[in-house]
């Protein structure tokens, strides 16, 4: 099979523009929020939430069939449009949001009383959601293709309503994050100090977790779980490899997320590859390049430091650990 050309993509841009916009906006939104996700070491939260969103979509297909199997089958017979939205109550995006927020609640809850860690609860959410989506996917053969698209991200075209929802989420959530990013960094970095200084730590954390849940749910419905997980992790990692200035980390992560979404879509069209996987691979290539650049810079700095003559101030021997110099001093401090 001959690969498509860039000209063909441009010629058919009217068909694909919604998907390209959705990918760019989702990449930007998740790239920005992903900085908090990565810094707070809750990378697998976004994966588990995305998986839960996919389960929510699967349930939105399956529950109507369970409640009214005859009407559902009749809807299928009438045509694709008839069964896609049997009722506003079974709108997939609502189920995706509900499942995401439920998963977010599990993440927020502290399971220490159950002698469990947050990570283990996230594993539980991920596995239940993944297994549930596969099992339900087996029951809804008519929508199995849609479900596979959501799980693995094959969003060649995106429904207009999904683009509107992703756009609205980007404007509202990104706007909120732009206002609150310093507060969220403070609360994540030194939660106790932030509480002592009167920062509304719970409200800020609540905003962060709910915004992660909403962003992941809406973007998963539009693009699929795999690229959503990728956008919420890889751009932030890449930005952290490139710069150590916290403000620039957010800017770079947003730009890299947007670029991964758009460029990944274009490459998938050109090479006729699955969209979500190609967007993920684009993000991974950028991260690999950033890590290599970081290694080269570290090696350059190491060589420079080795070649520099010792300064007078550094001639005084410095102990490897500050405390080590006190080892021989007679002290009576209690442990």
């Amino acid at each position, binding site marked *: 099979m001959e690969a498509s050309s860039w000209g063909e993509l441009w010629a058919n841009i009217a068909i694909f523009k919604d998907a390209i916009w959705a990918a760019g906006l989702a990449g930007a939104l998740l790239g920005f929020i992903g900085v908090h996700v990565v810094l707070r070491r809750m990378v697998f939260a976004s994966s588990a939430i995305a998986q839960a969103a996919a389960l929510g979509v699967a349930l939105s297909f399956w529950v109507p069939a369970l409640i009214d199997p005859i009407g559902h089958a009749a809807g299928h017979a009438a045509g694709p449009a008839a069964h896609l939205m049997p009722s506003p109550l079974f709108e997939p995006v609502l189920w995706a949001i509900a499942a995401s927020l439920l998963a977010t609640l599990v993440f927020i809850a502290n399971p220490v009383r159950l002698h469990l860690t947050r990570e283990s609860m996230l594993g539980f959410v991920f596995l239940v959601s993944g297994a549930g989506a596969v099992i339900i996917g087996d029951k809804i053969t008519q929508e199995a293709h849609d479900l596979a698209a959501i799980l693995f991200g094959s969003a060649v075209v995106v429904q207009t309503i999904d683009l509107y929802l992703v756009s609205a989420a980007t404007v509202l959530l990104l706007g909120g994050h732009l*206002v*609150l990013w*310093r507060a969220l*960094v403070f609360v994540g970095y030194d939660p*106790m100090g932030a509480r*002592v200084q009167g920062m509304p730590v719970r409200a800020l954390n609540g905003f962060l977790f709910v915004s992660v849940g909403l962003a992941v749910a809406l973007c998963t419905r539009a693009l699929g779980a795999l690229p959503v997980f990728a956008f919420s992790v890889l751009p932030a990692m890449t930005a952290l490899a490139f710069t*150590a200035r916290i403000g620039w980390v957010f800017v770079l992560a947003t730009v890299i997320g947007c670029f991964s979404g758009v460029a990944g879509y274009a490459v998938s069209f050109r090479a006729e590859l699955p969209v979500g996987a190609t967007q993920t691979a684009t993000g991974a290539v950028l991260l690999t390049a950033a890590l290599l650049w970081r290694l080269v810079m570290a090696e350059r700095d190491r060589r420079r430091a080795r070649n520099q003559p010792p300064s007078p101030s550094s001639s005084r021997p410095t102990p490897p650990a500050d405390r080590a110099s006190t080892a021989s001093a007679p002290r009576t*401090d*209690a442990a």
Partner: protein
Amino acid sequence: MAILPSFAFTVGAGELWAIIGPNGAGKSTFVRTALGLARPIAGTIERRPGLRLAYVPQQSALDTIFPISVIDYVLMGLQGSGNVTLTRRSVHLGAARRALEEAGAAAFERRQLRDLSGGQRQRVLMARALATDADLICLDEPTNALDAASEQEILALIDRLRGRRGAAVLMVTHLVEDGLERADRALLLDRDHGVALAGPSAAVRAAPEFEHIYGRFVARHGHA
């Protein structure tokens, strides 16, 4: 269930309190309660209306994955209930730089907090407390993992903090001797032995509970 026996004391302006006790004595619980982060199971804590608090964490509590510059860290001290988002950052830069200057850390302004040595980092942590202009500052093991020279520098900085600003300081420390020597007052805690003793440092050092907890050697050496 109450962790510590009942005790009562008042922290006055400009006082330096050393909070001492063995590991697991209840020092952290006391500090969290004093700072209003945990409710006392029994009893009350009264704070002067409008009292401003600051907390200086242990260095090990700060995650090195965060790319936080020294100036950004000190600027965090200017965030709070009245300035959550730190709008008009440039307006606050002056106050942050003055605090760094006072802590002797102005030269590190642009460096990453995680790249500094233990002593340098502790100065920056203290600078944030200075920037808050707090009335009561709680320091959690401020001399932990420092060399002897840095220890003395930090203890001198604490003296300046309360002397020039009139701030009261609660210092959790494992350096019993230095802590008692520098502090006006001390709080000795040990939940295992049911000890909660507050008073002037010399009185706490002379108390039989002190010798019981720390042994004869520390007590005698302290008196020498």
